[in-house]
């Protein structure tokens, strides 16, 4: 019982995004056109058509986090990385603001490659991101 979502996740886990050749292959398997599959993929927010940064940072902007000053966190992170919703030039980071991540009692919430960081303030967020910057540079 493999469903389309399984196939998409599998490819994205391997490549970090969905390469066109794989989209063509999966569309054939599913018996739909490439454009139909494209329409399905882009409906979802978590699939990428191009390579994205090594570390995907998502900051929650929904109401509970908003009430707890998530906007301040987001602004500082944007300034620090010099990006708004997008990838950094060095390819290390991608920044997204997203809807509720299901940890509303502990907001503001940020995830980096799906690891949860809670009860953030701007300073704490920058500190965490800096540690990833070091990690990225070490591995470079």
């Amino acid at each position, binding site marked *: 019982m493999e469903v389309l*979502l*399984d196939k998409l996740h599998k490819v994205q886990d391997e490549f970090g995004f969905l390469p066109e050749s794989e989209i063509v292959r999966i569309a054939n398997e599913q018996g739909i056109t490439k454009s139909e599959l494209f329409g399905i993929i882009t*409906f979802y*927010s*978590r699939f990428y058509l191009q390579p994205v940064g090594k570390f995907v940072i998502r900051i929650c*902007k929904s*109401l*509970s986090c908003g*009430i707890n000053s998530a906007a301040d966190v987001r602004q500082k992170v944007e300034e620090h990385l010099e990006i708004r919703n997008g990838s950094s030039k060095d390819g290390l980071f991608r920044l997204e603001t997203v809807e509720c991540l299901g940890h509303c009692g502990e907001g503001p919430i940020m995830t980096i490659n799906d690891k949860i960081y809670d009860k953030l303030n701007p300073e704490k967020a920058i500190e965490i991101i800096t540690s990833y910057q070091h990690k990225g540079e070490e591995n470079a």
Partner: protein
Amino acid sequence: MPEHKYLKKFIEASPSGDFANLRKAVEYGRDKCLNELEISGLVGRGGAGFSTAAKWKFAWNSPDVVLICNGDEGEPGSFKDRYILENGAFLLLEGLLISAFMLNSSEVYLYIRDEYKDALEAFHKCLDDNLDLIVWYCEQVNPGFELKVVCGGGAYVCGDETSLINSLEGKRPHSRIKPPYPAEKGLRGLPTIVNNVETLSNLPLIIRDGGEKFSSMGVEGSRGSKLICLSGNVEKPGLYEIEMGKITLEEIIYTLGGGCPNGKLKFVIPGGTSTAVLAPDGLKIAVDYGSLRKAGTSLGTGAVIVADESVDALDAACNAADFFMSETCGICFPCKEGNRQIDHLLNLIRQGKGQESYLKLIQDVALTASCAARCGLGQSCGNMVTSLIDKFRTDFVGAKL
């Protein structure tokens, strides 16, 4: 998340580990189990509060029922299903197996949003830990049984049962027109029962204690306990388990939650951003489906969001409008375009470029969207925004218009 002393039922019930409730259900047989479920008065915990037994009866005599457990939890303010998956996976697993047995269903899905990685891991661990019992279940109780855990792709609307079915079918996951309801015609045209994680986690308790005892908790139309996700400007945010109808919203916020730490309470959202807000004078209200409905709002998913006086009603409205604008599936024009217009008009007001007539316009657009909407997203998208306009008009008119 720290374990909370109010989470009596879920913590107590979880670690039994031997499927005692499942075994009991099998001894009872499916009809007696349905009888217990009916007596229990359980209603769905995914938002609508529809009777679980009534839903199941639509498909009771069908041979190929598909069962889907909805763990796509995306309503801002909600985190209860994640908590169950992470801390009570066994309870959900047992609930799923009991339900599949009762419904004669061998094709079962658990759809978890992709963001919930820890939840996914916890549930898989639970499956691994209970492999022997699952083998026994497959051989002795429900031959052909297959449980498939599916990760979502990141789309709030997939929480709607018909969108979720489209998503599983590999289609563009927008909502379907109802009727036919999924219980009649769902996945691949088969009768399909969709239930929330919290709903199915109640099944082992109903079998263990009997429907009578379950229904002795709560009030008419809202039997049993409910998980409440408390967040926002509150001293002790977190997950609480309450007996429905026996505690007021005020008590949840002040007695359990310790009140607002830094200022006076301004408004409360009782059930997530799809529900209308209540002002401080409306909080002496019992928390159950019926009482909140009567007050013009809804218990929704049980996501109680508290806002103190530092929160501008216009900002909160913009936040909700932005959410619905980005999450509409776009298939009904009034929902797709209406949410865009609501967001646009609110932002004009925020920038000081608004007119007072916009407020009426926003309410009209919201009403149109709710009347024309195919699914609950469009039906409820205006609840929070219009109630904020009604109750805190000065925040909108104030300096900005």
